[in-house]
């Protein structure tokens, strides 16, 4: 028989009560927050995984945002490119129905219609995105300087090079070096980027020279403009035929862009599907690691409460037992 001293006797119930109280406080916190891990030390191994998963989820969420962004940009651009194609097709229709021998008023009527087409293509080439930046501005995105300059009242003087407006300046006032070309990419997954912008320099111009200012009269807009101006005057069948060939080639180039966009969109769709599946998986794994099992927690809470109550009662009953009470 072990001898028990009075202090131990009185304190014996304390440890049990304290332990249960601590457990109840913890369970309460877990149930209230829904979190199983109240501090990393509660489960160091799970914590390591939770942190890695959280980082991955943050990255994947960003990739998802990037994908949306890229898709939006590409779809918007696609609409513009298609519009441009359609306009050029209309120009072709108009041109095929023109004959240099037609009467002046007929040629003028055609010229007016062709002017409409020209304006449409020019507007599309200078389309701005929601933020006000030129869609086909390449790396120069200055709202003050349309990438395809249109001088005067819509009448584009022949011979004016259609490149960046030389008046564009840096924020400190120094002139901007014209930098044609340059296409933007967006990261849609780790190490996976898609091109989300195109530079029409290579599309609307016959010579796809990047970086250099093309000689006058080489891009399709200028050629259309020249046709509009010359149609009432002297236009030969050869001029019309040449323009038709140019339009044909431009439409083909636009088509290539459309194809590229379609490819990029399907690549985004593919990346998105993978990303979402992984994101879901990571979120589930994170949830499993972090979320408290409410049912189990509540059951444990109940049993802890019962034990605490029992311990309290046992203490109250036995604490006042003393031989001195009977002397």
């Amino acid at each position, binding site marked *: 028989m*072990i*001898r*028990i*001293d*009075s*202090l*131990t*006797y009185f304190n014996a119930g304390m*440890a049990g009560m304290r332990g249960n109280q601590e457990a109840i406080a913890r369970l309460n916190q877990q149930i209230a927050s829904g979190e199983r891990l109240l*501090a*990393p*030390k509660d*489960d*160091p*191994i799970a*914590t*390591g995984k939770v*942190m*890695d998963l*959280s*980082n991955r989820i*943050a*990255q994947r*969420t*960003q990739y998802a*945002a*990037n994908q949306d*962004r*890229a898709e939006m940009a590409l779809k918007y651009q696609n609409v513009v490119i298609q519009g441009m194609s359609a306009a050029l097709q209309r120009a072709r229709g108009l041109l095929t129905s023109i004959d240099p021998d037609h009467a002046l008023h007929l040629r003028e009527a055609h010229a007016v219609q062709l002017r409409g087409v020209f304006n449409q293509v020019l507007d599309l080439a200078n389309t701005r995105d929601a*933020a006000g*930046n030129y869609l086909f*501005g*390449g*790396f*120069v*995105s*200055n709202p003050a300087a349309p990438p395809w300059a249109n001088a005067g009242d819509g009448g584009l003087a022949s011979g004016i090079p259609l490149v960046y407006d030389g008046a564009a300046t*840096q*924020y*400190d006032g*120094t002139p*901007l*070096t014209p*930098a044609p*070309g*340059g296409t*933007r*990419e*967006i*990261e849609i997954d*780790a*190490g996976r*980027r898609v091109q989300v*912008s195109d530079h029409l320099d290579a599309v609307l111009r016959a010579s796809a020279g*990047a*970086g250099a200012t093309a000689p006058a009269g080489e891009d399709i807009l200028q050629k259309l403009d020249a046709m509009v101006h010359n149609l009432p005057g002297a236009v030969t069948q050869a001029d019309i035929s040449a323009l038709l060939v140019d339009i044909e080639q431009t439409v083909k180039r636009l088509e290539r862009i459309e194809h590229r966009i379609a490819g990029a969109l399907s690549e985004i769709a593919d990346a998105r599907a993978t990303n979402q599946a992984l994101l879901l998986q990571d979120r589930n794994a994170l949830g499993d690691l972090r979320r408290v099992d409410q049912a189990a927690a509540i059951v444990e809470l109940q049993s802890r409460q019962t034990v605490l109550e029992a311990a309290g009662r046992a203490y109250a009953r036995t604490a006042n037992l*003393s*031989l*001195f009470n009977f*002397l």
Partner: protein
Amino acid sequence: MASGILGVALSGLNAAQAGIRTTQHNIANVNTPGYRRQEVGYAAQQPDLRTGMYYGSGVSVEAVRSLYSRFLDNEVALNTSQLARHQTYAGYAGQIDRLLGDAATGLSTALDGFFAATNEVANDPVGNAPRQALLSAAATLAHRVNTLDDRLRAQLDATNRELVDAVGQINVLAERIAASNADIARAEALSGRSANDLRDRRDQLIAELGQLVDVTRIEQDGDVSVFIGSGQPLVLGVVANALATTLDADGLRQLELNVGGTLVSIGSGLISGGRLGGLLAVREQVVLPAFHDLNRIAVAIGAEVNRVHRAGLQLDGATPGGDVFTGVVERTGATSGWIRLEFSASALPNRDYAVTYNGADYTVTRLMDGASVNVAAGAEVVLAGVAQGFRIQAGTPAPAVGETWNLNLQDYARTLRALLDDTRAIAAAAATPPTGPGDNRNALALAALQQQRMLDDGGSGYAAAYNRIVARTAALAAQADAGQSALGTLVTAATEARQSVSGVNLDEEAVNLIRFQQAYQASARAMQIAASLFDEVLGIVR
């Protein structure tokens, strides 16, 4: 014979009184820490030899003994000392665990935020909003690093303060133990008996000392000497040696013992128990590593983000990017070339360095002590046999002979600031043509840093390196918690075992009280009878 009768009864009365007094003493001290219950040792007195017979001559009080077991006392002392160590350790480790792991204070969310912002700038390089968001995210990241650094420094300060505090308490206890030794020697020389209560008090003082620092006690001729560390004497008989602390080069308090005027340094590895042991261990294993690793990650962030950003062009499409964060590598003099840091798996000491390029090698000098070494590009910098945790590579533009740089690594986590305050100064564009404000290639390169493994010899990126600190701290904190609860159980068990020998049981004392009371009453009765016997004899004479 008659005086004998009275004498026997008187000895019984005295003995019962001694018993009652000791019982009262036990009851009175039921709550006194360190008190050991006492009992009276009785023995029959030397018998009288009369008419060839031995007649008993009553009882004598031989001794008042305290009841204890040295073995059980040691068990309690040992476990209590270790419990105090684990409690202190767990306290600090738990705080740092929460600090690092919490989403609101940890680095993870700020890092994720910064790289999300770089992505958004890449998505819309000319937009002002994403650029503004990136500036805020950079400031948040810098601020978060500063805050973490500040909190970890606060923990180091707290360990410093607590060390000084514990050392003060240790010295007070050592003085009292030495004084106790003197008191006991005097008292016991006077009586020739064991001074129970004084000894109890001394043992209690040693037990309290054990909660502060693990001690070895050696008892000799009634004196108890107390040793700490690897046998350094804290108390030698009636002499107490003063423990002191001194600040080292890193601002950390280290222990020193003044032994007869000579200061003996006590390495932190030698103290393994008590609050002091816990403090030194948690500082060594949890606080300092977290502090140094945070600095290392901050340095890697500053160095790489700045390097990538400098390679780009600002919104004007012409001005090269500047430093996003406080410079880690800083060009000195007329230097125009850059060097690039690579980080090995070794710890990065909290020191500043100067670097000079001599055309073939780099001379790296530690500013604190002037120690220097020549290293080839890509070779780990090693000073006095200690790897410094980084390598040097040529940057862009490449270094020229004689060019010099400073490496501002010391306290970088504290000095780290986000320097850009103009959205146009963000260098999202690459410097290679074609380029312009709408170019996002450099922003993509910045965003790609999130995936890059620039730490631990290419083993981990920022997030992984940070997660490792959290996981390591969590493991140590959990271990300390487990140790704390295990030792709590051990202390309870050992204390119960010791108390079963030394503790006062009031019911038992009640029984003793009745026993001695009845013995007293019986002796008094015996005395009354002896007195009545005298009366009888006197009656005859009368």
